[in-house]
């Protein structure tokens, strides 16, 4: 993928083949594309490449692409959240100060659609082809422009789109795998978060212990968490 991470991966590695095998997502071939229900092919290509730059695979472990963050985004944007669940959507619509928060008419799904379409067209119009085919440095530079400027992306200021993309990428990387991202709990393994694990009563005063069980997802912990005491009687 990028030169630096390839160098750091291969540095000192005795067997190149072994290094490739343990370098998840770092070299092509890319994993086969999962079926998306929200993203079209061009959007999927952009999102996959973009999240791979926001949280790249490197020597610390897999990145957002390997964690299936695009699948998380696809489900969120295609579901109730994307449709504006819990979003106050009455006008009048007027710009405010940044401290007054989001004031656009777009639902998250509309916001992503409009912005991705504008990005894809912008790259085509400037003869740069698709975002996914740009070298990593150019991808980063393009993302930085979105982040720092408020370019008009089909009515969406680019910094607002970038902020949403980054926020949701982090969500997809660290949320429970039942939501489609954090595949194999790679985000949790990376930092040592035990997940839905429920009881630290015996451990909390063992100060500074190294606690590294395999993390637990909601899907794994079938039934209720173990209760250390029986439920109190209620009439």
């Amino acid at each position, binding site marked *: 993928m990028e030169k*630096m*991470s390839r160098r750091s991966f291969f540095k000192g590695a005795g067997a190149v083949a072994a290094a490739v095998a343990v370098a998840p997502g770092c070299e092509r071939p890319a994993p086969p594309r999962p079926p998306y229900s929200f993203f079209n092919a061009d959007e999927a290509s952009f999102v996959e490449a973009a999240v791979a730059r*926001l*949280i*790249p695979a*490197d020597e610390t472990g897999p*990145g957002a692409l390997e964690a299936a963050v695009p699948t998380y985004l696809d489900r969120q944007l295609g579901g109730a959240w994307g449709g504006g*669940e*819990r*979003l*106050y*959507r*009455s006008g009048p619509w*007027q710009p405010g100060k*940044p*401290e*007054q*928060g*989001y*004031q656009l008419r777009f639902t998250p799904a509309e916001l992503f659609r409009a912005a991705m379409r504008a990005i894809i067209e912008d790259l085509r119009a400037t003869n740069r082809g698709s975002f996914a085919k740009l070298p990593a440095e150019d991808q*980063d530079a393009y*993302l930085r422009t979105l*982040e720092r400027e408020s370019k008009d992306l089909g009515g969406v200021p680019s910094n607002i789109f970038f902020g949403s993309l*980054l926020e949701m*990428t*982090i969500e997809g990387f*660290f*949320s*429970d795998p*039942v*939501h489609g991202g954090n595949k194999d709990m790679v985000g*949790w393994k*990376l*930092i*040592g*978060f*035990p*997940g839905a*694990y429920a*009881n*630290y*009563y015996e*451990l*909390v*005063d063992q*100060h*500074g212990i190294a*606690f590294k069980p395999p993390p637990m997802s*909601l899907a794994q*912990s079938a*039934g*209720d*968490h173990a*209760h*250390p*005491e029986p*439920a*109190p009687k*209620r*009439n």
Partner: protein
Amino acid sequence: MTTTRREVDAVLIGVGLVGTVLGRELTRAGLTVVGLERGRPRDTVPDFQGPKMHDELRYATRLELMQDTAQETLTFRHTVRDTALPMRRWASFLPGTGLGGSLVHWNGQTFRYQEDDFRQRSRLVERYGRGFIPADVTIRDWGVSAAELEPHFDRFEYLLGVSGKAGNLNGRKIPGGNVFEDPRSREYPTPPQKEPYGSAIFRKAAEDLGYHPYPQPSCNLSQPYTNPEGLSLRTCTFCGYCERFACEHFAKSSPQTVLLPVLLNDRNFELRTGCRVLRINVDQSRTVATGVTYVDAQGQEVEQRARLVILGAYALNNVRLLLLSQIGRPYDPTTGRGVVGSNYAYQTMSYPQVFYDESVNINPFMRSGANGTVISDFASDNFDHGPLGFIGGAYIGEIMTNGRPIGFHPVPPGTPAWGAAWKKAVVRHYNHTSTINVHGGSVATRQNYLDLDPTYKDAWGQPLLRMTFDFPENDIKMSAYVTRKAIEIGEAMGGRLVAGSPRKGPYDITEYQTTHNSGGTIMGTDPSTSVVNRYLQSWDVSNLFVIGASNYPQNACYNPTDTLGALAYWSADAIVTKYLKSPGPLIRR
């Protein structure tokens, strides 16, 4: 078409903390009571059970347990010169909804406000002179003292089963407790929770600097407890899913765990959920409430007649409902006259972080909502403000509540926001960072207030509440001073780096700070500057009691729930022992 329901003795608007306590006290006194709750019914079993409750995305990020902003939110601006715009999603604060109210998703931090808070104006004038309070600061005495409230604090804390350590038992100071607290009549119902690692480091550093650390009083219980109502709680497991979540373990005090089951069994009580009150009705004299009008779960308008109305919704909703009902004179910031909506205050937070070597495992996920160690050396008026040029203060503590990684992935200042460098920093610091809370109070000012928005409406066509607020200069100065003290403690905690800055303006509603909104229906002794008297009875409508953090004339630095519970019992006691014997104003205006 409006259906009219037969008159009952009392109607409760909201069945959270206040509704549950008042419902219990009034039915116990023999009254027939109807509780109207806009949200849904819910209980520990089956609604709060694991494993689904341990879903950070659903509860902490998407805010499943909070008031639905698509239906009802509020508008916000910094000053009267700005146009208020709707908060299209919650962020800065998170009002809950549903049976049990915000006490389902709270952390359980259970502090008593101090006498210095209840008599803030008088005490400051006594100690520093009349000219010491800034001109635009409208802080007031509450009209009630810590000594008067003590039996009610005691009763509320024994209902909840609070885990803590007394620092002042009947005037005797006890090292290891909060030595700045006012006298309490007996020890906490249960001993403190276990002390997590970061808190233990904080305690030692604070002691070395000469401060007085104590365990944060917690409603995540340290041991099994059966309260005077006969309901039992269990030991908190430090699962790290507390604030913004409901407790699956019966280990967090909430209406469901400490009182609701008793109330719901009372034949004098009827709960109606899915019922949204549109207004409180008054008779032609506008001095007597006749009941309320609400929209039920089927969308039908219903008039519920009642001899007594208890308004006990979330603080902001209390203010809005009085304004919608045209009870009390709305506050006008240009003249300083009027009362409803005045003295809106918040809290002033900052969060220095201590970054450790990789050998120090903080284990942030082994935490409870209200665990941790704090000091009150810089709270309220516990330190000399004379040379400092501000009033009020903050408690400081290592009170981390969780290690849930969407919300918690600390990185040192200067780290890029994304990419390989960000990822490396997250991996490096996740398990090796301690967060200190500087939990500051908030003065009331002439310019910060609440009224009805002229433009934006809720799903029922009623005006949204409009908040006009920015951090007062006094509080910015306070935060600068106390945050510096917190950073000094952080530097004594043995980390590699301490980072953090005091709270600065302008107020930003896109960043979570606290759900400790206060004021707007303030209590007091003067009807020209308060909405309710010291028993929380409306000055204008004597059979209406308004109970909530909306009663606070300004906000102290502590978490508001314990004081609200004490006020609820204080008001209930006045209703039962005074008002019911002779209905009418308890204090002549």
